């Protein structure tokens, strides 16, 4: 028989996350309604928050930047078959290092590169430990989550002591010197940080797709057994992958610090490390797709405040939009994998 029996049309894998996001928007609609606002109005406000003005666009990009960088920091180890759930701790580490450097010196033109490099290095060290521990049988999911706690509580501890700005009524560090700050352009709206993100995206894409190291990490992500047989050192490669991932997440922290908040407090991150995991998952471990998904979640986050302020809706509603696509995507991929095992057998 011919064409007719090729089976029903399948949704291409890459389209699944996009469809899942659309589905999650549908899921949210009745909840917005229950919350007391018309859902059309809700989505309009959400949209206006980011696209209503140049200021909106700027704050949208600003909230997306950490997601792009931390998202890459999760996606890269994901290629090598590793789950970096430590984005949160790694970005805090990066920001913390940035604060120490940024408050200790005056800075100057191009000085921001120093905290960038230092943040990358220190967060990479944190990631590397998690990757290296895997060789000793400690799963990276467990270790990276534990590192999140260590980083967070170290931060709050430091904020009780020398790190705290004595002039502030609340616990936050002193602000980084002007000479280290990453500014904005186009009427002081658009963060220069987007250029850093572009460079990093390009660099990681090249690394992953066009280098031998990237190829080896990809093979490792496909099969440990094949990797070993190809002479790939598991422990070393995993350490490298997690180090790179940690470093990228650390960059996310320091770019946010130098470009937006300038200080670090206990609420520095609204959970970017975890949202970035969602971003990387939807991007299916590929580098470039991290960008649109990060922009989408940045858009949600940016609108969250407006939903609260103008419509009086609980901001947590937006978290449903973060969580729902993950569940839908996981279910679809799980189902496809199941069908594949059933159909292919041995």
């Amino acid at each position, binding site marked *: *028989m011919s064409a007719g*029996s*090729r089976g029903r049309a399948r949704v291409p894998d890459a389209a699944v996350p996009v469809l899942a996001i659309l589905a999650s928007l549908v899921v949210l609609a009745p909840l917005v309604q229950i919350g007391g606002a018309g859902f059309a109005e809700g989505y309009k406000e959400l949209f206006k928050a980011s696209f209503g003005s140049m200021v909106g666009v700027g704050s949208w990009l600003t909230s997306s930047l950490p997601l792009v960088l931390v998202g890459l920091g999760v996606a890269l180890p994901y290629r090598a078959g590793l789950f970096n759930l430590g984005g949160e701790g790694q970005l805090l580490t990066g920001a913390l290092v940035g604060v120490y450097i940024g408050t200790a010196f005056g800075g100057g033109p191009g000085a921001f590169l120093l905290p960038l490099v230092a943040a990358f290095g220190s967060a990479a060290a944190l990631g590397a430990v998690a990757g290296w521990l895997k060789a000793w049988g400690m799963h990276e999911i467990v270790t990276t989550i534990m590192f999140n706690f260590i980083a967070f509580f170290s931060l709050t501890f430091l904020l009780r002591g020398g790190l705290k700005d004595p002039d502030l009524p609340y616990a936050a560090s002193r602000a980084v010197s002007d000479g280290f700050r990453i500014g904005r352009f186009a009427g002081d709206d658009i963060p220069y940080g987007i250029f850093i993100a572009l460079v990093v995206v390009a660099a990681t894409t090249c690394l992953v*797709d*066009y*280098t*031998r190291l*990237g*190829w*080896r990490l990809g*093979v490792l992500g*496909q*099969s440990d*057994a*094949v990797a*070993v*047989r*190809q*002479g*790939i*050192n598991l422990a070393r490669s995993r350490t490298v992958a997690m180090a790179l991932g940690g470093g990228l997440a650390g960059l996310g922290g320091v770019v946010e610090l130098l470009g937006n908040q300038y200080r670090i407090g206990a609420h520095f991150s609204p959970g970017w490390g975890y949202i970035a995991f969602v971003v990387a998952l939807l991007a299916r471990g590929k580098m470039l797709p991290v960008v649109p998904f990060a922009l989408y979640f940045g858009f949600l986050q940016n609108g969250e405040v407006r939903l609260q302020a103008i419509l009086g809706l609980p901001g947590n509603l937006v978290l449903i939009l973060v969580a729902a696509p993950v569940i839908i995507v996981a279910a679809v991929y799980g189902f496809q994998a199941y069908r*594949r095992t*059933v*159909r*292919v*057998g*041995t």
Partner: protein
Amino acid sequence: MGAATDHAGPVTAREPSTLAVTGLHKHFGRVRANDGIDVTFRGGEVHALLGENGAGKSTLIKCLTGVYRPDSGRVTVDGREVTIREPADSRECGIAVVHQSSTLISRLTLLENVVLQEGRLGRIRSELADRLVDSGNRLGFAIDPKARVENLSVGDLQRAEIARAFMQEAWLVILDEPTAVLAPAERASLFDLFGSLTAQGVGVVFVTHHLAEALSESSRTTVLRAGRVVGRLESGHQVDEQELVRLIVGDDAPHPSLVGEVSGSPLGAPDAPRTGEGASSDGAGIDGAGDAGEVRVEVRGVSGAPLWGRALHNVDLAIRRGEVLGVAGVEGNGQRELSALLTGSWSPDSGSVLLDGRPLADYLPPERSKLVGDVPDDHFLATCGELSVWENLALGTFAWQEAPTPGRKALRRRSAADLVSEFDIRTAGVNAAVRQLSGGNRRRVILARELSKHPVLLVATYPTRGLDVRSAEQVRSWVRRLADGGSSVVYMSTELEEIIEVSDRVAVMVRGRVSGVLSEAITIGGIGNLMLQER
């Protein structure tokens, strides 16, 4: 089924039934695995399904046992149309299948496995145990229901699965390549068992690559090629073997080696050392065991065990340039460990492997991946199922030799097409995921990759396992050609004729030791003697 226990004494032969398949189609993407198959299986007779890799034998069986759903076609049992959606439907029709690798859970006992499959935990175990033993007895062998599966041999497991099927009143037992995993003696007893089954009215369907086996053990043979039935034979008829070979492989060139196997292998005869076509180019020097070429690979006093395997004891081997060193022995005597050792994926506790006089461990991975070709016994060690054919072909190159820039990727993708045709890999295209390929074709992907890099050392571990005769013959000639081009080859196999045909010298492994190396007058008897040696 509950009534079974009421039968007293020997059960009378079962009512012979008939399973008829008409117009069965099953496609995977563009691959037509089954392309309109018509075949009839009858109770009380042995039916062989014969064909090359990828001919559609396994697919047909999976359609009949509910693993796959056919795209179209009819299946009838005694004229009544049945729909087989899942394995349970197939069992209900009285069809039982014995897979090549046992589906029993290894940490449970046989009885526990039976209870598990019966799905009725309330059933009294002893009753099931009795029935299992009874089934075994009626088929002519003893069975211990309390034996743990992991302690049984492959042959025991097959018999146990057959007994289980018999106990469950199956009237048709389908065996997927049952003899591929059996030692010669166990093969004979399996064929005896076929006799007992048919005497009880049970039909047997077995899949095989072996022409001789199909002809001698079945009363009916169906030959499949490219998803279609291309021949039907009944016992008693005069069979033109040449003709049959042509049916199987589907081209007009005669394959002398195939026919040779059917008429009793001349290679097995004593004092008939390898007279392979490839050797002539090397002259007579090779069997002279001295000046055939310098030693390029040396294993010196290796002892130790990898985490996953058995121990090697004081293994010493030397492989010369242009030489194929066969490693014979019953599987599990250290071959996998030797293969991991020689490819550098395992470093022993003591001793070393020298490649051109330098320890293999001192070579950096890029050098090693260039110099050592690795064809492991399991394709899961060498191919990534989710990656495409071309990516798998470029796996080692892009990992170590050259950066996978867009230009080089395009280049490799194009050259992959050449390898696909040169090594006759049946695939929908170079972009198809390797998991869509049949086992034999996955192995061809590995061979294409490893042979095309012209390694100094090729480690081939059971490279022809699961391949049909023609493919196996091809593999041996590729390997031979590689050696004639100056590579050193270590060739492991459990088939002695194969070893003798392809090797210049033969080492025999017993319990992790090399019990001896034969360099002249290599015969089955000589190898057999070494296999029996225990130090």
